[in-house]
């Protein structure tokens, strides 16, 4: 955990590295202010063109909603907490929340979380590691 070496490919296209340090790429619309996860050139909210500014997403936020996944696709370890987080820059990010009991009695809406990075081996990657992000309680 937290061990990130260079060269391992990111699991999603909006995950980048600045030297060795990973970060999440986003876009802010300078017309309406909405912050999107990932790169884009047109705003889905206000339809403005060429108003998108590349930004690095915030790495702290609060838990909006979650579910405890008990059954998933073959080979995927369960249970895990599938979380939707409102990042502090106004963007919204889905990810796995670790460091909490996977039990609704132990998870609170609005709890503070932060983004962390690591290498992981997705089930169908043939054992190949990928760079990914996840959430932990802040």
């Amino acid at each position, binding site marked *: 955990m937290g061990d990130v070496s260079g060269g391992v490919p990111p699991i999603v296209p909006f995950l980048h590295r600045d030297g060795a340090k990973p970060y999440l790429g986003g876009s802010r619309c300078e017309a309406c202010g909405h912050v999107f996860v990932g790169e884009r050139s047109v705003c889905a909210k206000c339809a403005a063109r060429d108003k998108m500014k590349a930004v690095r997403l915030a790495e702290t936020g609060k838990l909006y*909603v*979650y579910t405890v*996944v*008990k059954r998933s696709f073959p080979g995927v370890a369960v249970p*895990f907490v*599938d979380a*939707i987080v409102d990042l502090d820059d106004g963007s919204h990010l889905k990810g796995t929340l670790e460091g909490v009991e996977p039990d609704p009695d132990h998870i609170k809406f609005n709890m503070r979380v932060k983004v962390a990075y690591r290498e*992981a081996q997705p089930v169908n*990657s043939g054992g190949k590691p990928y760079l990914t992000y996840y959430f932990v309680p802040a």
Partner: protein
Amino acid sequence: MSDVYIVGVDMIRFGRFPDRTVPNLAAEAALLALDDAGLTIKDMQALFCGNLGQARGMIGQRMLAEIGQTGIPVTNVANACATGATAFRDGWMSIKAGVYDLVLAVGVEQMGKGLLGGGEGVSTEGVIGSGTMPAMFSHIGMEHTRMYGTTFAQFARVSVKNHWHSTMNPKSMYRKETPLQEVMAAEMIAYPNTKLMCSVNVDGSAAAVLASEKKVKQLGLMDRAVRVRASELSSNPFAERQLAMPDFSAATRLAAKNAYEQAGIGPQDINLVELHDCFATAEIVHYENLGLCADGDAGKLIDSGDTQLGGRVPVNVSGGLLSKGHPLGATGIANIYEVSTHLRGAAGERQVEGARLGLTHVVGGGPGMGSACAIHVLEKV
């Protein structure tokens, strides 16, 4: 513009038919609907065929090869869980436009068992949350819990109701009552949806014959006709969290508003509803999206019994997707069959007494895809 009527409508009993083909399942429903109207494929001027799983497979043409190749125009339609309803609506539009007087709409699907979701390439499942449908619709339920305190038991009560309804529907895949205790103690798939709160993946087909007013009168079919008072389709308008959690509420609210406007009625005028209960959590949020109660009151609505048979506005008396089953491309027309059957007063044991106006709703989509919502308002003639 002419009013459009349903003059024939039917569905096969949903189930698992791994040894049959998709066109063959479609053909069975098409013939049932034609028989219901007392017409044949030779009377049809066009076919609109909805199927998702084999969207490139020319299912409409292959179905005609099984029931009669008359050379009519075929439009094959795919639009997530709104596939069947979109095919129906395309038929409706063709009559509204004055192009045809008599058309056939079919919805069909053959499904595997198991979880829906996922996709191609390296999977992010478990690594970046979950892409399964149960997880997605659990988020939507938890959002309701977050806003209004809706409980696990309230969500579970949807399944108790719909499973009970299905015991009265001979076309339902399952016909077994499930008490609250059993629903809540069933295998947890993604909190708060247990296995009994997830819709059933089944095979199925449904079909409808649509006609212009002139044609209905000419054929003398008005005594079995159902009037289409509104047909609406929407895509997902921008929603704040759409990149993180797919949104089905905004599309539903938009289509509902337009459908009520088109019909010149309000939600209080509706006598029964078949809505998209792909998961128990979904039915709760759609109560509010369709205006069946005020925002925040859906938990109270299920508790009150108003949405069960005998209540103020029975919802999913067919058993719904939860028990009748959810063959994606067929579901939209199967809902139309159910409501039409009540408006005709022919629903037997589960008949909603005095039903005059009914609403059907389907909405589908997925992570990173967007959504499609279709709503129809049907009226007893």
